[in-house]
């Protein structure tokens, strides 16, 4: 893979691609639209996301934006990577880290996987790699993640990553026309180091 060009304002970026035992994490590129559409168009995927199921056109636009989400230059920046399986090269989902606070060294972790690829620990494996980047390279103090309280698979991933349940909000907001219930999980740098 050729060197990935980074914005000149970049403060932190992973060495691409990030290789884990079974996965390859890399920035999105134009050819990924069909693969993204294969899971982001599904109602069972969007059920717990802020987005509705996406059209092919919306996926093309999303991929175009994501191609530039590969480095941290400042607060609010998002690194959003394609998760590829090494053995067959298939793009099975996405994993993200958002730099929420520079001064407080906080970030938010996220992941979405194609339902076909659930149940193999891929989300945990991909998210762990971004956690390592966040703590080792960015020097974060705390990383948190959120999910709908009904999304038990997602909560399981957070638990496997060693994250603690910090919040269980009930009916704190309206979400797609109904009352929202949400979990927040978090892990501190010190906890992450102990768990290694």
């Amino acid at each position, binding site marked *: 893979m050729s060197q990935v060009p980074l914005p000149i304002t970049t403060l932190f970026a992973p060495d691409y691609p990030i290789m884990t035992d079974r996965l390859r994490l890399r920035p999105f590129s134009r050819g990924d639209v069909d693969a993204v559409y294969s899971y982001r168009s599904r109602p069972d995927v969007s059920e717990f996301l802020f987005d509705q199921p996406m059209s092919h056109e919306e996926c093309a636009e999303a991929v175009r934006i994501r191609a530039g989400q590969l480095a941290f230059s400042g607060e609010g920046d998002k690194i959003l990577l394609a998760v590829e399986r090494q053995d067959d090269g298939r793009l099975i989902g996405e994993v993200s880290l958002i730099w929420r606070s520079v001064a407080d060294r906080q970030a938010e972790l996220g992941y979405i996987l194609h339902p076909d690829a659930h149940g193999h620990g891929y989300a945990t494996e991909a998210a762990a790699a971004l956690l390592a980047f966040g703590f080792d390279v960015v020097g974060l103090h*705390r990383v948190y993640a959120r999910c709908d309280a009904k999304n038990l698979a997602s909560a399981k991933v957070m638990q496997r990553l060693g994250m603690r349940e910090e*919040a269980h909000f009930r009916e*704190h907001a309206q979400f797609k026309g109904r009352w929202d219930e949400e979990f927040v999980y*978090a892990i501190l740098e010190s906890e992450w180091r102990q768990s290694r």
Partner: protein
Amino acid sequence: MGMTDLTIKTGRLVLRPFEKADLDEVLSYYSLPDVQRYLDWKARDRTEAKSAFEAMRKQTRLSRPGDSLTLAVVRKADGKVVGHVSLRYMDATAAQAEIRFAVGPAFRRKGYGSEAVGAVISHGFAEHKFHRVFARTAGGNEASAQLLKGLGMRLEAHYREHALFQGEWDEELHFAILDREWQRGAKVSEISRHKVA
């Protein structure tokens, strides 16, 4: 003008908007560090505390998100201002409000805070039809946590080191209660309004 200001009466307390004459009593507790944690206006000195007081005096309406209603908590027995309670309208679609409070050190451990906060929560559910009222406290503020738990609020969040506060890692608790969970009527003996000039 026909403007009405809210007065809430409980067993031992009267809750009403701040009046000019309350200034000195408010200054006696407003600048204390543990009181400062969740207030809208920083008050490191008397001048800042004074402008904070002036701003709180104007918080008498909850018409739209962002509005706050701040009421002085006055002891019936001697007319002393023991603290204040503030209710902020946070979100219209989800009908959410945040409650905040401060009790002067001389008046703590007597249940005044609980009595006043309970009355304002009742007011929020009954008059403003809020769906959920929540409160935040610093992790180390055991008295506030006990007060909120005592009112039946559930601990919904315990954030650890989620932000720096004055150079130290902060810990924050969130308590919440839904309209249907609140025991209506038990906490307020009387709600009345009076005309003001």
